[in-house]
């Protein structure tokens, strides 16, 4: 029997951090949080799960990326508007914060343009701190293939982020 209560209380915070970081707002993150657990139920019905934490993290990343793509498809880049109030109450100068917020939003935008597997590998490695082997296990790929995925993801993101800067200039 699956101890869902235990899983939710133990792994819920990590799932929440993942979806919130990728989506950047509470409303979307809350929906995605629910979706992650619903997706986990589907996987559980199909197969025995050895590492619930890793499964939930992977599902959270995938669902958040899906939602991010939908958001940018429907709302364009306005989703990342930064409010002055958000910038004026930190320890860092508002200029730094504005630049960081802008970069974060560009990265979210650019991630949507990557193939799903590249985006997932990138998020799991750079945002969630997984190693190559863990990613390989969960994406059903070899360690070398993960390296290639990450290399291509970085390369494409560099192009996309640079293009965004050029467009704005």
């Amino acid at each position: 029997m699956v101890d869902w209560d235990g899983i939710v209380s133990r792994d819920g915070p990590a799932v929440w951090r993942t979806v919130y970081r990728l989506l950047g707002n509470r409303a979307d993150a809350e929906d995605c949080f629910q979706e992650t657990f619903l997706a986990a139920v589907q996987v559980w019905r199909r197969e025995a799960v050895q590492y619930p934490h890793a499964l939930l993290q992977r599902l959270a990343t995938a669902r958040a990326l899906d939602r991010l793509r939908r958001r940018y498809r429907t709302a364009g880049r306005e989703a990342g508007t930064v409010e002055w109030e958000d910038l004026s109450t930190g320890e860092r100068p508002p200029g730094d914060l504005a630049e960081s917020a802008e970069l974060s939003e560009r990265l979210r935008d650019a991630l949507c343009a990557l193939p799903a597997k590249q985006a997932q590998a990138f998020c799991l490695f750079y945002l969630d701190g997984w190693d190559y082997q863990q990613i390989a296990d969960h994406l059903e790929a070899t360690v070398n293939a993960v390296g290639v995925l990450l290399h291509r993801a970085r390369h494409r993101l560099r192009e996309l982020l640079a293009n965004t800067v050029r467009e704005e200039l």
Partner: protein
Amino acid sequence: MNDQDEQPREDRDIVDRAVDALRAEPIADGPPPRLSAATVELLRAARSNRPQMGLLRIAALLLIASCLAGVIALGVRERHRLQARGNERPAPAAPAPGSRLPRLANTDAPTHTLVFSTDTQPRVRPVLATLGSAVAVTGHVYFRGDIPPHPARMDPSGSLGEYDHPHDQSIVVNDDGTLQNVVVSISGGLRAGEPFPLPPGPVVLNQHNCTFVPHVVAAMTGQEVIVRNLDPMLHSVHAMDAEETPAFNFAQPADGQRMIAPFQSVKTFKVKCDIHPWMTAWVRVFNHPYFDVTHDDGTFAIKDLPPGTYTIKAWHEVFGVQEKQITVTGGEPAVIDFTFDPRQ
């Protein structure tokens, strides 16, 4: 990335700077949100559905197989008994595709569409249903009459492609002349003021391939009702009672699901999607758990009804209502059939 952290900000790779910016963003304060009631319900249901491994799984499969064999043997015997009973009355008229269906007084639709089941195998489901010790009343609902030709597409533009469900589900007659989507319920004879147990689990109404599935559902007051959109497109869920007073009306995003506040009174709702006007469903709400909706073999089963004499009602959205008396002894399930014939 540590060595890069030491570089001047402007010289660092823009990807690393963007990753750092994203990682540095504050996460919303407070604990993660609570899972919704619908999600919790699914998690609870999943507890018992997890695949078991090894010997335990094999043992369970063997047990199920042996139970099924026994049940089928009993089912065949019970079916023969029901068939013998059925011989005492005229057999239901075979459907005549292409013939016309008279227009009925209690419907606002000028014509109706019949959907034929393609399953031609004899079924044992009604008998299986009666084998549960809790089943108190069972039977079939039949249809007699002429059947109009199959309809054109429901979406005249055909723009929805594979999601353009071609059938109106208001009249669904099976090959053997039985009728689906009839709500059979106890309408008289229950002890007043007696609290009744809620049926287990929520009632689920799906929006799938631009159709409400099932087309008719029944619930008890206080029972949870979940509406799920399984399509990759927006739908709405717009319910109106008999007086056409809106009960609820909300948008249902692609792949979304929403739990409706449990119904508090006995009512009948027509549910539609405002975006795809051919999508309709019915929700009937009772203040007791003694009801069922005829399945794809035209059968129903009412469970856990105490011994006594009751009025039993069959309701169909087009053909209206029929009532009969039935006596439940507490032993063998009582068997009763209904026949809807628009010519009568």
